[in-house]
């Protein structure tokens, strides 16, 4: 999971490494996902999140489809 300056840099990076594209998010989208995913990480009563909770968060952020499926 890497930062890139533009779609052009992404294409060049994938081509140089011979990798198939995965999923691309804007920095604000990634921030929202990261912030919400980790918000409770330090709660004293933290419990392992259920897959369904994470799937619900992905759905809420519009991150749907085969790439985001937890399988």
């Amino acid at each position, binding site marked *: *999971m*890497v*930062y*890139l*300056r*533009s*779609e052009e*840099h*992404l294409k*060049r*990076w994938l081509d*140089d490494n011979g*990798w*198939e*594209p*995965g*999923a*691309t*998010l*804007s*920095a*604000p*989208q*990634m*921030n929202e*996902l*990261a*912030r*919400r*995913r*980790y*918000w409770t*990480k*330090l709660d*004293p009563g*933290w*419990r*392992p999140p259920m897959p369904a909770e994470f799937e619900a968060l*992905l759905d809420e952020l519009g991150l749907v489809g*085969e*790439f*985001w*499926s*937890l*399988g």
Partner: protein
Amino acid sequence: MDAFDLDVRRHVYFSIVANGCPPTVEETAAALERAVPEVEDSYLRLHDAHAFVLFPDTTNVWMANPWCFAPTPYRVEAAGRVWTGTCAWDALGIPGALHGDGRIDSECACCAEPVTLVVRDGLVTEGADLIVHLLVPARRWWDDIGFT
């Protein structure tokens, strides 16, 4: 994950925030007044449960997401300390976990030019034009978490 493992995990995470680094098995055993082998077994179970990640063949914490304890190109300033994020996602997760602002200094994976993101009040106020790419589909993230 039983109550003891949750206690161990909580101690590991709270120690990271307090000290900037994860505790050893011996330090956790002393803090929780438990035997070292018990805590060692707990660390291994927590690794297997993906609560944190140990360096291969050790009980030293490598990643307690979003924090990483090996060099990466994700330097994060938050809560008055400099941290290392595991990846582009986790670098943004550190200010989130700490419920505060943050600054991330990293690089473009393509050209290695420096990139900076600033998070204020939960929003990206600098670096919002950057993109993040994930190569590995969600169902395979834990197949090789170091690569993911």
